[in-house]
C-alpha cells in the first residue's frame, strides 16, 4: 500500500480546521433567527449534509457508468465509497430536517417531496448494500452494483417529481407547500455567508472522506487478492 499522500494529510487537517471554523461561524457570526432562535442553526448543517449526500449520489452514478464502460474495478471502489458516504450524510440530513420540522411545522416528519425522496434514497442504498452482500464474485458484484446505482439514480428524480405532483393534488393535511413557506425565513446577508461557508466546508469534508474511503477500499481489494493468491 502506498504511503498516505501529503495532499491527503493536508486535506484531512484542513477538513478538521474548516469544520471547527464552520461551527464557530454558525454559532458566533450568523445572527440569531428571530422566530426560531437556536434551532435555526441546524439549518446550516442540514443543507450542507443534504448537499454532500447529493454529491455522493451523483459520484456513485458516475462511477457506475465508468465501471460499465471500462470494467475497471477501481471504479467499483469509488462507487461503493460514494454510496457509503452519501448514506451517512443523507441520514444526518434527514435527522436534522426532523429537528427543524418539529418547532417549525409542529411535527417530526411530513411526507414532503424532499424528505420522502431522501428516505427512499436511503432505502435504495441499503438495498444496494444488501445486493452486494449477496454476491461473492467481485466482478459480478461490481457489475450488478453499477446497474443498480443507475436504476436507482434514475428513479430518484422521477420519485421526487411524483411526490411533488401528489402533494399538489392531494388534500393538504400537514406540511404542504404552504407549510414549507411558513417554515421559511428571510435570509440576512450574514446568514447567506454562513450557509455558503458551511456548504464549502462540507464539500471539502466530502472529498477528504471519499479519498480516505477509496484508499480503504483499495486496501481491502489488495487483501482479498493476497488471500486468493495464498489459496492458490
Amino acid at each position: 500500500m502506498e504511503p498516505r499522500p501529503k495532499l491527503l494529510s493536508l486535506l484531512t487537517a484542513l477538513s478538521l480546521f474548516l469544520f471547527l471554523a464552520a461551527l464557530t461561524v454558525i454559532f458566533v457570526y450568523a445572527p440569531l433567527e428571530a422566530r426560531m432562535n437556536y434551532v435555526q442553526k441546524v439549518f446550516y448543517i442540514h443543507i450542507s449534509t443534504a448537499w454532500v449526500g447529493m454529491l455522493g449520489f451523483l459520484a456513485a452514478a458516475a462511477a457506475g457508468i465508468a465501471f460499465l464502460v471500462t470494467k475497471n474495478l477501481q471504479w467499483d471502489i469509488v462507487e461503493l465509497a460514494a454510496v457509503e458516504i452519501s448514506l451517512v450524510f443523507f441520514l444526518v440530513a434527514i435527522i436534522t430536517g426532523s429537528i427543524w420540522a418539529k418547532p417549525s411545522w409542529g411535527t417530526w416528519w411530513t411526507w414532503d417531496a424532499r424528505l420522502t425522496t431522501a428516505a427512499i434514497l436511503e432505502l435504495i442504498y441499503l438495498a444496494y448494500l444488501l445486493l452486494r452482500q449477496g454476491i461473492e464474485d467481485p466482478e459480478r458484484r461490481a457489475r450488478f452494483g453499477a446497474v443498480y446505482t443507475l436504476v436507482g439514480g434514475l428513479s430518484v428524480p422521477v420519485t421526487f417529481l411524483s411526490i411533488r405532483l401528489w402533494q399538489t393534488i392531494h388534500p393538504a393535511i400537514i406540511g404542504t407547500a404552504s407549510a414549507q413557506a411558513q417554515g421559511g425565513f428571510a435570509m440576512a446577508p450574514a446568514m447567506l455567508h454562513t450557509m455558503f461557508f458551511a456548504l464549502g466546508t462540507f464539500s471539502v469534508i466530502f472529498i477528504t472522506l471519499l479519498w480516505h474511503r477509496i484508499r480503504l477500499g483499495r486496501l481491502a481489494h489488495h487483501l482479498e487478492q493476497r488471500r486468493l493468491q495464498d489459496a492458490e
Partner: protein
Amino acid sequence: MTPARKPPTDRRSPGSSRPGFGRAILAVLWKDLAAEMRSRELLSAMLVFALLVILIFNFAIELAPFLRLTVTPGVLWVTLTFAGTLGLNRSMAVEKDRGCLDGLLLAPVDRAAIFFGKMLANLVFMLLVAVILLPFYSLLYNLNLFNPGLLLVILLGSLGYVAVGTLLASMAVQARTRDMLLPILLFPVIVPVLLAAVRASGGFLQTAPFEQIRPWLNLLIGYDAIFLAVAYMLFDAIVEE
C-alpha cells in the same frame, strides 16, 4: 468469411441463419406461456396469493362501503405488486435452474430480444392476474371495476413494473439471497409507478375530471419509456460475464 466445407451428405442449409428481433421475442414469449399452460404453477400461486392479500386487507382496514372508492386503488395495487414479485422471481428461477439462461444466451439472437420476451411473459401473467382479480373484487365489494380507464392504468403500471422487475429479478436470481432480495431491490425504485397508478386508478374510479388524471398518466408513460430504455441498455451488463 465462409465456414468450413459442407460434406455432400448435408442437404440442409447450415444453421447459420438468425431470427429477426420480433421473432426471437415471440419465441421466448411462446416458450414461457407454453410452460405455464402446462404447469399453471405460477398463475395459480399468484392468484391465490392475490386473493389472500385482498382478504387480509378486508380485515385489516375494514373496507366499509363509504371508504371503498378511496381505498380500493391502493388495495388493488399493493396486491398486484406483491403478487408480481412472486411471478418475477419464479420467471427468472426457471431460467437459472437447468442452466436455461445459458441456452438462451447461446442462441444467435439479440440479448435485448431475450429480455423483452421474458418481460412480455411477465406482463401477460400480471395482466391475467389483474383480469381475474377485478371481477372477484367487484363481486366481493359491490363495486364496478370494469372501467376502461382503470384497465389502461393497469396496463401502463404493469408495464413499468415488469420492465424494472424483470431487470432486477435477473440480478437477484444470481445472488445468494435470491428470493428475499427482489422486493428489497424493486420496491424503492417503483415508488413512482405505484404512486401514479394508485392516483390515476382512483381518479378513474371516482370519475374525476380527466385534467386531474392526465398528469398521472403522463408520469406513468414517462416512467415506462425511461425504464424500458434503461433495461434495454443494461440487460447485457447483467448477463455477460
